């Protein structure tokens, strides 16, 4: 194999080797290369030093009352409703999508039926027009009469 130093991919292989991945064909080839390459041996040694150093870093154990505090929080923060509904939740989750789909379909059908029933019947134009014009003319006449009467009242009041 070619020297891993200088090749990003090969260096990843070398890191994987240092991390303990040694039962691969690549690892066997690397081991052969290490026998003849001092620079790579040095790199492996320094990388293994990093791993050993990280191994020394122990995290502290959890507090003795960790579980008690957690369960107290669960008791406090998870609502009563949540607990009451919990046994039904799997059923509810399973049924929610089909129920929602069925609801949507029902609403759509309802809207369509409703539109069909309240649609106004078309009125023949030749019958509607003279009647409407007649009503409009009557309304205009009535407004003119009303305005004239109002003007006359105001003039009388000023005098």
């Amino acid at each position, binding site marked *: 194999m070619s020297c891993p130093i200088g090749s*990003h991919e090969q*260096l*990843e292989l070398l*890191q994987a080797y*240092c*991390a303990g991945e040694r039962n691969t064909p690549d690892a066997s080839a690397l081991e052969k290369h290490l026998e003849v390459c001092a620079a790579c041996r040095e790199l492996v*040694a*320094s*990388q*293994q*030093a*990093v*791993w*050993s*150093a*990280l191994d*020394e*870093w122990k*995290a*502290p*154990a*959890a*507090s003795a009352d*960790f*579980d008690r*505090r*957690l369960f107290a*929080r*669960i008791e406090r*923060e*998870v609502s009563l409703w*949540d607990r009451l509904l*919990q*046994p039904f*939740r*799997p059923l509810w*989750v399973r049924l929610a999508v089909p129920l929602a789909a069925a609801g949507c379909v029902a609403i759509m059908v309802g809207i369509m039926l409703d539109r069909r029933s309240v649609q106004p019947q078309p009125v023949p134009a030749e019958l509607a027009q003279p009647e409407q014009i007649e009503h409009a003319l009557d309304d205009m006449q009535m407004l003119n009469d009303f305005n004239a009467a109002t003007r006359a009242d105001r003039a009388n009041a000023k005098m």
Partner: protein
Amino acid sequence: MGGLAATLDYDAELMVRVKEGDGASFTVLLEKHRSPVIHFLYRMVQNQAVAEELAQEVFLRVYRSRGTYEPTAKFTTWLFRIATHLALNSLRDGRNERLQERLDADSGESASRQLSDSRPSAEAAMVKEVRMEEIRQAVAGLPEKQRAAVLMHKYQEMEYSQISKILNCSESAVKSLLFRAYETLRARLAHMA
């Protein structure tokens, strides 16, 4: 590996039981994953009090989300995704910095205690503490995502594929994160050989 897969399947099975209302299964999951989660969070935020507070939040969220849990991925992928999310948020909101100051003050106190100790092991203990501090600082100096990737790879022994799912990136991105992180650590810690 087969044993590991079986264990992970068992975790998911336990979580499904929690979903169905079996509180005892939650206790089993807590017992099994408490330490790995706390240790991961401790190494991420480097403060035990904050790590425990975050771990409580992780398990609380697991319990709260039980109703919508679907065993589509490994349980630990889901668990560490929550843990990583909370740790990164904690680091970003600066809450940890205030506590870090306290931690620094504490380690200063412990160093002075050790200096005044007349026992022969005092010097060795102090050397060890200095060494640990170097390691902690080297890891703390890594960018957040690199740090999370290294901790999951090194201490949780996770595969690239699982880390990629937790960090929501590609496997090649994980390899790149790890490569850069180990290069940085090598530069900072190689003298410890």
